């Protein structure tokens, strides 16, 4: 394999890994930026999107869990992947709005620590509900039949088709949300709210409604991430909490409240990860052949540490502190 084709493969893999981070980070970032609300349950929305997608798109046999005990071991609507891709975001959007109304809103005036504790507790509850219902064992989320198998690309050769779809779907969604925030009146209110909530209120703009929508959109993106990310990995109740940490790192690297920052952060993390997975240091004369795959996860946190030391507000974050 030539250097160019290897680089292209690393880039594509990185884009795909980063895409999932971006989908999660945008929601986290705008909720944090506008509502100043720290949502440790954001990963739970991913988890719910994932299981909802699984149940809508296919039939799955669960080996344990309370549903199996009650005779519902094999469940699912089997409506196909596209149906899941359309229904899940709507479902999680509604869930996000409910969450804003009943969870976040009563806690806006409480200290950050209380918000984190509450959402952390809810994340555990969500994870445990899924575990109780479907057991903790891992399931397989099938790739949609129309996107299974590899695709022959110039330079690279065979590349899993679904990964390209993930990149494409993410790109479209990011552009839509970006346009919404950047070019509409709704977006203007949201952006103003990111800068200075009090000022917007003084100007007599009702921000509670845009905020609800912001929460809903952020949640829906997390749900989509669950659906498109599902076929990439195994499915079990801990995936939601596992993905939350890199998503937070993405926000920290990119800068709070910035969609472009979230995208940049996600790409940096994704590409770093895929680079370290593929790269080995080979110096035959010294007998060195060291693969850096074990460092792939360490690498993304090391990058976060370096960026934080050099530029504490994140790459595209503003100087204004959130406190």
């Amino acid at each position, binding site marked *: 394999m030539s250097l160019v084709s290897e680089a292209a493969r690393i880039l594509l893999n990185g884009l795909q890994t980063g895409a999932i981070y971006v989908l999660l980070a945008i929601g986290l970032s705008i909720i944090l930026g506008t509502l100043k609300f720290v949502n440790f349950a954001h990963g739970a929305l991913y988890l719910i999107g994932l299981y909802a997608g699984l149940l809508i798109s296919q039939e799955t046999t669960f080996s344990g869990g309370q549903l199996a005990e009650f005779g519902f071991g094999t469940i699912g609507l089997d409506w196909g992947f596209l149906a899941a891709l359309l229904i899940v975001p709507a479902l999680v959007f509604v869930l996000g709005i409910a969450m804003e109304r009943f969870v976040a809103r009563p806690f806006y005036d409480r200290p950050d620590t209380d918000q984190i504790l509450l959402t*952390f507790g809810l994340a555990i509850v969500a994870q445990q509900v899924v575990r109780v219902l479907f057991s903790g064992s891992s399931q397989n989320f099938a790739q949609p039949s129309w996107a299974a198998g590899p695709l022959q690309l110039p330079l690279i050769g065979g590349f899993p088709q679904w990964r390209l779809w993930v990149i494409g779907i993410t790109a479209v969604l990011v552009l839509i949300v970006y346009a919404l925030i950047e070019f509409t009146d709704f977006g203007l209110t949201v952006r103003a709210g990111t800068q200075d909530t009090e000022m917007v209120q003084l100007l007599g703009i009702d921000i509670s409604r845009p905020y609800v929508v912001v929460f809903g959109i952020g949640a829906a993106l997390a749900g989509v991430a669950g659906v498109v990310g599902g076929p990439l990995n195994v499915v079990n109740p801990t995936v939601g909490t596992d993905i939350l940490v890199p998503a937070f790192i993405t926000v920290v690297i990119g800068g709070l409240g910035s969609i472009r920052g979230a995208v940049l952060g996600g790409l940096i993390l994704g590409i770093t990860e895929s680079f370290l997975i593929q790269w080995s240091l080979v110096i035959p004369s010294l007998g060195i052949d060291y693969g850096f795959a074990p460092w792939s*996860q*360490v690498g993304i946190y090391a990058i976060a540490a370096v960026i934080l030391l050099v530029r504490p507000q994140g790459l595209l974050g503003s100087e204004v502190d959130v406190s």
Partner: protein
Amino acid sequence: MSDESANPTDAPETEADGGKTLGGSASENTVTRLRTRWEGARDREVTVIGLTIVGVAVFPYLFARAPVVSDLLQGYQELASLMLVWGIFAIGFDILLGRTGLLSFGHAALWGTGAYAAGWASANITEFPLLVVLIGVSVTVVLSVVLGFLSLRRGGIYFAILTLAFAQMIYYMASAPLSFITGGDNGFTGVEIGSFLGVFDLGTELPSIAGTLIGTWRYAFIGAFLVFSVAAIHRVLNSPYGIVFRAIRENEQRAQFVGFNVWRYKLAAFVLSGTFAGLAGALFTIHGQYVPLSSLYWQTSGEVVIMTVLGGVGSLLGPLFGAGIYLWVEYIVSGGYPFEWIAPYWLLVLGLVFVSVVVLFPEGVWGLVGDLRRRVATRLEEQ
């Protein structure tokens, strides 16, 4: 409940004021006088240490051997030791969460590092339990300084996220690149703990009555560290640090404007709590003679958060109870008999209880006990 951090000389005055609000004529009541003396005494260091010693000494008997009680609780000796180990972790964690108002989601890194450092030291340097603990603590203190320094660069919400992130980085370091030291996914297996002072095998029972009450030397060893920890934290809370921490929690900017270097005090709180996390981690190794990789995973950070909040943030002993309750549910309730009906849901139940504590009873179980005590006292005085 914050009595222990109040200036001891204030206690009688505080009580007099309390008596007034409860109705003037009752203030001469015997109960009130007894209470006054009791509350005044409770603040004194010796009393706190004395009560802790008694509690630690009696607990294993009640939990594992006493008739009726131990049958109800289904307790056993080794779980009692484990509760003390996590108890140390939780009361140290509360210096940061309850006193200073900083929520760390990265204490697994400190606990795990203490555990690994102790395990590694026992396999490679010395088998003496005290030295093993000392090495575990020292390594953790150094890491606390680094981790605290990095995580406190940004204020507010960033702290929880950054502690979480850096702790995960350490977890992944241990899981793969450093697996030649840590044993990777298999955990650290070569732990060799010798006998205490070269004489007492930690696994054997204490002689006569002490054996009935306390049980093993291992429990006594861990219990001694718990008493030491309670005494040390009590002292810290009554030093200038105690009141500065509270000032930071309540109004950080004001604390800065009366001249305190808030950043350094936060780092100090982080390192102090990290010291106890490292101590607890080292004792965890001595207790289990094995270090699982999961000790560094962020679920461990989550567990100490739950224990502390459940027991009651901002109280010296609350987190201790939180640790006990959590482990009891994790080890006894989840195990089945006589809890089959709830066993599969144990963590779900804990999660729901945790959420309701956060929403409804921010002072935790210890706070509820305190309320109850006050209510009973009021009732007694009215009679």
